[in-house]
C-alpha cells in the first residue's frame, strides 16, 4: 500500500482536533467551589433583580438534594463540583459599543473558529452571538433585527432589557426541579442567548450562537431561551468548541423553546466540544437539557450533529401540547476513540392530531459507545396522534458499541407509533468499490458516512451543512477497523 498505516497515524495525530487552541485573554474568574455565596456573586456580577437571585437560590437548594443521574449508558468519573469555577468572563475595560471595540484576541478566536463576525455579516447574513466561557461577547446584526421587533441578545442583556419576557417564560419548559444538571444550571448559569420573534414575523436570517469554553478549570453553564410568538418563524443554530485539555470540563446547558400558536422554530446544533485525546484523556462532559413546547399548529424541529465531547447526555425534546402541533428530531451522533454518547429525544404528545418524527443516525468508531434513548409518549387526550421513529446505527469497528433504547408509552388507542431500527457495519465492499474508483479510504469513509447521514444533514441550514460534513470527516479519520 502506498498509503501506509504510519502515514495515516501521523495525519490523524495532526488533525485530531482542529479547534484545540487556547486564547490568551485576561479573564475575570470566580473562586472555585460552589455555595450560596457563589450563586449570589454571579447574580450580583450580572446586576440581576432580586426575583432572579431568588430563583437561583431555590434551584441551588433543590440541586443540593438531588443525585447525579446514572441511568444513561455512560461511564465517567463524576465531576467534582467544588473544584470548578462557576464564572469566567473575558475581562473588558468598559461596555462595548460596537464590534470594533471587541478584544482583538477574541476576534482572532472567532476567526480561528471560522466565524469571523465581519465575514458572517457580509456573506451569509447570519446574525451571530458569541459566548466565550460564560459570557456573551458580541451580537451582530442587532439593529437590523431590531427594526422587525426581533430581540436577539445575550441572556444577561435580556434580563436587563426584557425582564418581563424572562420572568414570564424562563423555567416554564425546563423547571429547575427537572433534573440534576438543569437544577445546577438554574443556580449558576452565567449567560447564554435570548431570542424573541414577535407575532407574525418571519426572521429573515439564521440566528446563530457560538459557544466556546476557553479558561481551564471552568464550567460552562449557559441558558438559551427562545420565544417564537404566534405565527412567527425562526431558524437558530448553535455551534460549540473548546480547547484541548487534559482535564474534563463540564458543560451543563439549558435550552428552552417556546413556539406559540402557529409558530415554527428550527433549532440546529453543531456540537464539537473537545472529545478528549485518542486514549480517552480529557474532553468535555456535555450534560444538556433541551426542550421545547408547542402551541396550536406550531412546530419545533431539533437538528443536531454531535461529534464532540467525551460524554454526551442530551435529549432535545418536544412537548406537543397544542392540537395539530409537530415535533421533529433529526440527529447524527458520532463517537470515536473513547467517546460516549447517550442521546435521543422525548416526544410528549398531549394535543389532538399531533405528529412527531424521529430520525437518529448513530455512527460509532474506535472503542466508543453510542446510544440512542428515546421516549414517545402519547397522552390520553392525544387522539389520532402519530409518531414515526427511525434509528440507524453504523459501526466502523468491532470494538465499538451501538445501543438503542426506544421507550413507547401509549395511552390513546387511536394513535399510531412506528419504530424502525437498523444496525450495519461499514462495508468493506463499499470501501473497495470507492477505492477502485480512485477515492482513498479516508475520503470513502467520509463519503459513505455523509451519505448515511444525509437525511439529517439536509435539515441543517445551508451555511452549516458544509461545516458539519467537514466535522464528520475529521471526527472519523482513521476510524475503520
Amino acid at each position, binding site marked *: *500500500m502506498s498509503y501506509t498505516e504510519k502515514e495515516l497515524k501521523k495525519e490523524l495525530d495532526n488533525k485530531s482536533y482542529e479547534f484545540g487552541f487556547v486564547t490568551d485573554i485576561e479573564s475575570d474568574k470566580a473562586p472555585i467551589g460552589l455555595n450560596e455565596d457563589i450563586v449570589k456573586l454571579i447574580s450580583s456580577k450580572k446586576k440581576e433583580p432580586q426575583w432572579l437571585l431568588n430563583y437561583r437560590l431555590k434551584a441551588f437548594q433543590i440541586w443540593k438534594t438531588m443525585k447525579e443521574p446514572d441511568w444513561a449508558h455512560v461511564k465517567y468519573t463524576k465531576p467534582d463540583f467544588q473544584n470548578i469555577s462557576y464564572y469566567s468572563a473575558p475581562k473588558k475595560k468598559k461596555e462595548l459599543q460596537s464590534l470594533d471595540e471587541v478584544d482583538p484576541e477574541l476576534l482572532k478566536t472567532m476567526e480561528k473558529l471560522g466565524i469571523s463576525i465581519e465575514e458572517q455579516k457580509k456573506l451569509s447574513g447570519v446574525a451571530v452571538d458569541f459566548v466565550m466561557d460564560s459570557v456573551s461577547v458580541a451580537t451582530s446584526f442587532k439593529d437590523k433585527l431590531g427594526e422587525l421587533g426581533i430581540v436577539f441578545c445575550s441572556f444577561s442583556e435580556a434580563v436587563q432589557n426584557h425582564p418581563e419576557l424572562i420572568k414570564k417564560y424562563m423555567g416554564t419548559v425546563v423547571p429547575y426541579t427537572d433534573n440534576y444538571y438543569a437544577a445546577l444550571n438554574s443556580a449558576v448559569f452565567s449567560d447564554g442567548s435570548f431570542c424573541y420573534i414577535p407575532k407574525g414575523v418571519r426572521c429573515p436570517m439564521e440566528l446563530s450562537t457560538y459557544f466556546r469554553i476557553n479558561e481551564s478549570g471552568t464550567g460552562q453553564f449557559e441558558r438559551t431561551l427562545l420565544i417564537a410568538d404566534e405565527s412567527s418563524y425562526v431558524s437558530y443554530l448553535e455551534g460549540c468548541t473548546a480547547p484541548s485539555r487534559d482535564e474534563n470540563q463540564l458543560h451543563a446547558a439549558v435550552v428552552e423553546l417556546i413556539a406559540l400558536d402557529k409558530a415554527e422554530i428550527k433549532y440546529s446544533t453543531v456540537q464539537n466540544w473537545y472529545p478528549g485525546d485518542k486514549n480517552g484523556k480529557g474532553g468535555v462532559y456535555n450534560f444538556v437539557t433541551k426542550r421545547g413546547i408547542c402551541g396550536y399548529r406550531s412546530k419545533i424541529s431539533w437538528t443536531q450533529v454531535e461529534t464532540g465531547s467525551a460524554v454526551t447526555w442530551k435529549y432535545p425534546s418536544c412537548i406537543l401540547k397544542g392540537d395539530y402541533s409537530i415535533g421533529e428530531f433529526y440527529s447524527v451522533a458520532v463517537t470515536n476513540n473513547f467517546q460516549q454518547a447517550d442521546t435521543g429525544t422525548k416526544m410528549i404528545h398531549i394535543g389532538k392530531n399531533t405528529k412527531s418524527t424521529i430520525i437518529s443516525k448513530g455512527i460509532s468508531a474506535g472503542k466508543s459507545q453510542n446510544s440512542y434513548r428515546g421516549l414517545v409518549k402519547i397522552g390520553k387526550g392525544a387522539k389520532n396522534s402519530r409518531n414515526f421513529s427511525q434509528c440507524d446505527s453504523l459501526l466502523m469497528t468491532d470494538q465499538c458499541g451501538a445501543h438503542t433504547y426506544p421507550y413507547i408509552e401509549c395511552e390513546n388507542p387511536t394513535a399510531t407509533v412506528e419504530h424502525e431500527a437498523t444496525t450495519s457495519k461499514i462495508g468493506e465492499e*463499499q470501501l*473497495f468499490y*470507492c477505492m*477502485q474508483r*480512485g*477515492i*482513498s479510504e479516508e*475520503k470513502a469513509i467520509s*463519503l459513505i458516512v455523509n451519505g448515511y447521514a444525509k437525511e439529517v444533514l439536509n435539515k441543517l441550514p445551508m451555511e452549516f451543512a458544509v461545516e458539519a460534513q467537514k466535522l464528520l470527516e475529521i471526527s472519523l479519520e482513521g476510524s475503520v477497523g
Partner: protein
Amino acid sequence: MSDTLIEIKDLKCRIDNQNILQGLNLKINKGEVHAIMGPNGSGKSTLSSVLAGNDNYEITKGSITFLGEDITEMSPEERSWKGMFLAFQYPVEIPGVSNINFLRTALNERNKYFGIDSIPAKDFLKMVAEKSMLVGLDNKLKNRSVNEGFSGGEKKRNEIFQMAMLNPKLAILDETDSGLDIDALKIVANGVNKLKSSENATVVITHYQRLLDYIVPDFVHVLHEGKIIKTGDKSLALELEKKGYDWLKTDTAI
C-alpha cells in the same frame, strides 16, 4: 515505449487458507481485447479483484506489472489513478451518495494525485451529459444514490458510464453482460467499443459468446482452477459454447 499494458507472472493468491489463483500468466498489450471465460468458481472475479488491488486476497507468489511498474503491492486507489478500472460483477450500493457526487469526487481525487486543478463544474456536467449518452444511462439515474434501487441492468450500465467518465487504460468488465437484455447488451457493447483506442485495452469476463459478437476479442482465455488452461482466438469462444469446458479440463489432466 513498449506496447505492454499489463503483465501478470505466475500469480498465486489465497483467501481464508484457500488457494484461488494458482500460477496465472497473462500479458496484455495496448489496443487489445481479451476475453476470459471459464466455469463458475474458476477464479475470474478473484483475478479482477486482485488486479484492482483488493487486499483481502493474499498474494503468495508472482507479480503484476502495469505500464512497466510493479504494482503488486500498490493500493487500489493508486492503481485506479494510473488507469485501472473494474466494472464489478456485483456493483455496490452507496446510499445517500449521488452518482454525480461520487464521480466528481473520484475525478478530483485523481486530479489531486496528478497535481491538476479539480475539474470545473461546467466541464464536469458537460462530460456527464456526453458520457451518459454514450451508454444510454437514464437521466434520472445520475442524481440518484450510487446503484441504490437500480435494476440489475441499470447497475451494469452505470458501471460502463463510470468507466466512460474515468477513461481507463485497462478496463476489466466482470460479467457485465449478465442480466442485460439483448438491447441493453448492444448499447453497453457499443459504449465499450467507442471507448476503445490504440492506447487502452479491455478484459471481458463472460460466460456467453453472445457478448463477443459485439465486443470482438483478439484473444480468448479459459480459466480453470486458478490457471489459464487454454488460449485461442474468437473461434475458441464458439467452440466453448458448443462443447462446454469439460473437454478442456480432461485435456489438462493428461
